[in-house]
């Protein structure tokens, strides 16, 4: 870890690409994508999906890599500093504070979710849930582990809490080790392993055929049909297009300030054109090829279409933590494959969560001159305090509220701000030159127009749609049980406290910069 204000650097280009791809490849690739595809027109969903990949996903990737490397040139590894150099306005750094808020808030609850995958990997290997043979029994197993129900296996939250602590320490240990020795090393091990695990599982599932000859309609082929058979009539439905845009947006982990932080450790002439595209392609491989070949096909093969649809409607967690464990009890070597499945999700999770910690660590290092040890320690204290609420109040919906405002709506707001700042305020020509500087290939000129006009427009429409469709009902607590409402408000208060804390730190940092500049001028 370099000292004296010198910034760290990536050890290799492939290490950086794997780290950013690891940030993008998360639980959503294996759980959210197949559900979205199956619910929104199957193969036809891929038409808007690929269109948005081209006009939203890839441009946002390049924009974030560009902003990040540009900020790194001025020794800024987080969005407040990066926005400040893009827009010479007092407000710019406060807009950037949103990038710190989003990544830190998601990190708080994501660490806990990640720990479930580690726990279920152990429970699979030890066959702990292997007597829970119905969906209700398996759901009860999951809920009792999360402290949401009383079950035979868990009498308290202690196992979940201990595994949360293990996950927490692993995350912060990687962050403490630094960019090259921590994050890059983790990505070089975890991402290839994750791909191998997914490949093994996909091959195993594809060779299952028709598990029950008495029900020939329930087969892996039918599962693939469920995802891929196109229903072209649905293409006239705007909600399908918005679902595709949302999926592209979530899957690439854009709009949270993490890619910027990673890209800030590049040298000014390092390539970002090819690296950004490779990152996006790796994520798509994990999602469209591997993600679509595991959870849904195997669920259809064992439960049939109707029950799989119920699992899909109940959400990604039901699919991952209820239906998959039931299937592992039925297939040969199920304990091994179950363990592999949850380890794969754990690796997908940890490579994403360390990325969420980096923006705040970089902010404290770059803007306050803190050592990495102190910066990681400070973040760890805040996350440790906040995660207590998530663990103990999860059953009341505390986590859902954080996930909506920071992990859903906040992302599109931040992405819109950064796109407008980079392509309009900083200037499209300068931004274009920045993104092509040192590139291993020249970005096709059409992306210039896409980034300037189409990407912000799509983001704006997405933001307005989500505001009307989900933000207002969420804000009004529609559908929330009366006894849970205080916890939803508690979640909001926690987020407001975090936001105020971040804004004050940003203000303090720039106050320090001004004083420093005045002393130097004297």
């Amino acid at each position, binding site marked *: 870890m370099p000292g004296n204000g010198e910034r760290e650097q990536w050890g290799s280009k492939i290490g950086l690409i794997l780290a950013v791809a690891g940030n993008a490849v998360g639980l959503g690739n294996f759980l959210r994508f197949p559900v979205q595809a199956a619910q929104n027109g199957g193969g036809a969903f891929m038409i808007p999906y690929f269109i948005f990949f081209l006009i939203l996903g890839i441009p946002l990737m390049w924009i974030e890599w560009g902003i990040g490397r540009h900020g790194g040139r001025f020794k800024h590894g987080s969005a407040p500093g990066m926005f400040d150099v893009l827009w010479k306005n007092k407000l710019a750094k406060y807009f950037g504070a949103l990038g710190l808020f989003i990544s830190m808030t998601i990190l708080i609850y994501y660490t806990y979710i990640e720990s479930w995958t580690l726990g279920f990997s152990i429970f699979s290997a030890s066959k702990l849930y292997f007597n829970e043979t119905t969906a209700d029994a398996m759901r009860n197993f999951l809920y009792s582990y999360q402290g949401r129900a009383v079950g035979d296996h868990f009498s308290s939250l202690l196992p979940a809490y201990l595994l949360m602590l293990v996950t927490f320490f692993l995350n912060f240990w990687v962050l403490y080790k630094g960019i090259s020795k921590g994050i890059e090393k983790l990505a070089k091990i975890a991402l290839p392993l994750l791909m191998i695990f997914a490949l093994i599982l996909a091959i195993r599932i594809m060779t299952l055929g028709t598990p029950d000859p008495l029900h020939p309609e329930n087969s892996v082929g039918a599962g*693939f049909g469920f995802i*891929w058979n196109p229903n072209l009539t649905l293409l006239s439905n705007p909600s399908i297009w918005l679902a595709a845009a949302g999926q592209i947006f979530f899957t690439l982990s854009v709009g949270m300030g993490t890619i910027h932080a990673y890209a800030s450790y590049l040298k000014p002439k390092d390539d970002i054109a090819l690296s950004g595209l490779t990152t996006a392609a790796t994520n*798509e491989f994990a999602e469209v090829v591997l993600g679509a070949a595991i959870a849904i096909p195997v669920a259809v093969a064992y439960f049939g279409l109707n029950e799989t649809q119920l699992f899909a409607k109940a959400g990604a967690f039901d699919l991952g933590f209820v239906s998959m464990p039931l299937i592992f009890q039925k297939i040969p070597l199920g304990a091994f494959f179950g363990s592999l499945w949850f380890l794969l999700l754990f690796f997908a999770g940890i490579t994403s969560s360390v990325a969420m910690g980096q923006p705040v660590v970089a902010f404290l290092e770059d803007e306050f001159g803190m050592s990495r040890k102190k910066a990681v320690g400070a973040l760890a204290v805040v996350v440790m305090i906040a995660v207590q609420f998530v663990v103990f109040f999860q059953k009341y919906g505390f986590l859902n509220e954080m996930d909506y405002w920071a992990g859903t709506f906040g992302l599109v707001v931040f992405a819109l701000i950064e796109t407008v700042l980079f392509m309009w305020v900083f200037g499209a020509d300068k931004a274009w030159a920045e993104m092509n500087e040192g590139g291993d290939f020249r970005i096709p000129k059409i992306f210039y127009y896409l980034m300037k006009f189409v990407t912000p427009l799509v983001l704006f429409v997405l933001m307005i749609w989500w505001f009307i469709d989900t933000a207002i009902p969420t804000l009004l607590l529609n559908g929330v049980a009366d006894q849970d409402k205080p916890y939803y408000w508690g979640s909001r208060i926690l987020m407001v406290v975090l936001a105020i804390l971040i804004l004050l730190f940003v203000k303090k940092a720039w106050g320090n910069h001004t004083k420093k500049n005045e002393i130097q001028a004297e």
Partner: protein
Amino acid sequence: MGLTTGGWIFLIIAWGCVISLTVYCFTRVLKSEKERS
């Protein structure tokens, strides 16, 4: 119902595009790494 002809077409095109793009990108990255070293 298994994969229909339309389903096969969409699957093959989607997987083909994604796999080709990934292989192309990594080939170029590894090539440029090799040239630099």
